[in-house]
């Protein structure tokens, strides 16, 4: 574990039905300094992975399934190596598609 000063906090805001699984309020997540999207997925795997339904979460690959996206400023964050910074607000949503 890195010293506290070297860690960052991001805010994960689940939207819609995902709040049933991640909680109704935004979640503060602590990550190592220089963390990337992949590190955030690891925390999700540890904290929520086993409780998520299989259509949303691939336990084996420790990744979301289907159209579940991290979104920052309205844009999808797909690059697992994209850097995260302290205070970043990340929306977590399941894109709606059935019409």
């Amino acid at each position, binding site marked *: 574990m890195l010293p506290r000063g070297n860690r960052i906090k991001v805010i994960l805001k689940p939207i*819609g039905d995902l709040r049933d699984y991640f909680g109704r309020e935004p979640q503060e997540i602590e990550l190592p300094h220089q963390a990337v999207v992949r590190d955030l997925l690891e925390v999700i795997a540890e904290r929520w992975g086993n409780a998520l339904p299989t*259509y949303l979460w691939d336990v084996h690959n420790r990744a979301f399934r*289907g159209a579940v996206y991290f979104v920052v400023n309205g844009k999808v964050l797909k690059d697992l190596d994209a850097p995260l910074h302290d205070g970043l607000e990340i929306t977590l949503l399941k894109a709606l*598609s059935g019409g």
Partner: protein
Amino acid sequence: MSETLKGYAGKQIRVNLERWEARVEDVSPEISRKFLGGVGYAAKILYDELSPGIDPLGPQNKMILATGPLSLSQVPGGGSIELCFKSPLTGVWGECRVGNDFGPELKKAGYDYVIIEGKSTEPVMLVIRDQQIEFRKADHLLGKTVSEKSAAIRDELGDQRFCILCIGPAGENLVKVASVMADDRAAGRCGVGAVWGSKNLIAVAVRGSGKIVAAKPDEFKKYLKSTHDEIKENPMFQGLQEFGTIGDIPSNDDGGDWPTKNWQSNSWGKGPELFDHFQSQNFMRGFGCYKGCTMACAREVQVKDGPFKTPKHGGAEYESISCFTAYILNEDMDAAVHATYLCNELGLDTISTGSIIAFAMECYEKGLLTEKDCQGLDLRWGNSEILPTIVRMIAYREGIGDLLAEGVRAAAKKIGGGADEFAIHGRGLEAPAHDPRSGKALAITYATSNRGMCHIHPLEGMAWDRGKLDWGLQKYGLPDPNTVDRWDEIGKGSAVSLLQDGLVLPDVLGTCKFYMYGGVTVDHWARMIADLTGWDIDGAELLKIGERVINIQRLFNGREGITAKDDMLPARMLEVPAFGKYSSEPDCVFHEFNAVMQEYYQTRGWDAVTGMPTLQKRAELGLD
């Protein structure tokens, strides 16, 4: 290209099928400014020109093929054409949209609309090639499936680039749930294909070589490009592109938005495994309905082998597959893909056909239909073996298919014995695969949708309430969806009014609604219209036009006898699900439905008893 109406083709064809004559008229600038186009312009024409009470399958009915001003391939979602008419299934306002190059091609040929009147004495095909408008005998096309017809027409015309709308055998047989097909994309609902069949209109083919020029061409082009760039980063855009509409099956099942066993429940629990089978076994690639579609949510699919072996085709939409799986408790995805393919080939609406089979299965279970009534078909829940046979029987009106071809409302009336309890429809239109027990706004949009309980207009209720989309409408007064619980009730009536005004716009503008899900807002549309036409128009005026369109369609329905008492949901949608994840969740059903409907009428400026716009509202909208 019109001089008085910049950005429009400026002409419309009025077709007299009786005499095989076509007259080219000017598009009305006044109606265009008030109703823009698409289902708006068509509603005004049909309201003015159709007498109330006419037989929808008689020669007095008219069929309007309507583009909107934005039905241009370079516009996000612009590959669209709307078909508007009085519906033989519901007896009220009928409209269908299909994504295809037909709309942009009609504009290139020089026309915004085709208004089809009367009835031909023999099967006919209308061919539009720029200024040349031709009627051709179509006897030789009768009985052919949609793909056979389309191929034969292109061969006959000697040009594979023709865009074609045609009916299948179901339309020829006046099946009330027949579609009009644009290759494998469907104008599916409200019995549109039966209206074509009643007119002996088998196909319309179009090819154009002209161009629509915008009032401000450089600005228009630049703005379209920046909008395309902006939306491709949008999560909804990416979700639809990556997984198609069918990608929502697992989450809708989980979220109580997947009608199951003819609406006895709103969830089944089998959605994820069915979708996994689809992705690994049936799905081939995504594609766009028209040349410029960048979202490309349509799916190319197949069934490689087995009893339901099916060639590569475009289909397997969320709605179609849901109606052939959860609705009827069918666990075989291959059978569902095959059945929906058959519907498209025979020219049947997949939603209505799946609903009708679910209805028949429940009648069978309850003893209201016997094996003998059904010519030996075993209509047990989930029996996928019978699907190809029953689909064909409906399309060809054979045996029990003749009764079912009338739709669930009429079939229930004939069967009697309480069958109407299992006939799940709104205004006679079979309900699509979204359940208002997943969010209360959907109940209000379902109850008030002008064409009945469909999968297009009411969906904004679900998408705001549960999907948390706002389409840029918060600045016009829509509550932030993230502050609203899907099971709240009070407040949903007034929100729905604004949602409907905003989300009718794609069908008025002639675009695909999914682009609004993918990030195009009312303000984006307004800017495009301003650059295209040179008009000084903003989002607020577009919303006013949306409101005007909803109101004139409502007035059309009022003349056909619709009142507030028809704004009702089937009882089953107001009951706690009989089984599944939500069967012990009383909050999922509406408790104050009537109170919220009153709130809706009040916001709309509609009389609470007649359900019609008050004189004051009509005057405000220029509808007096």
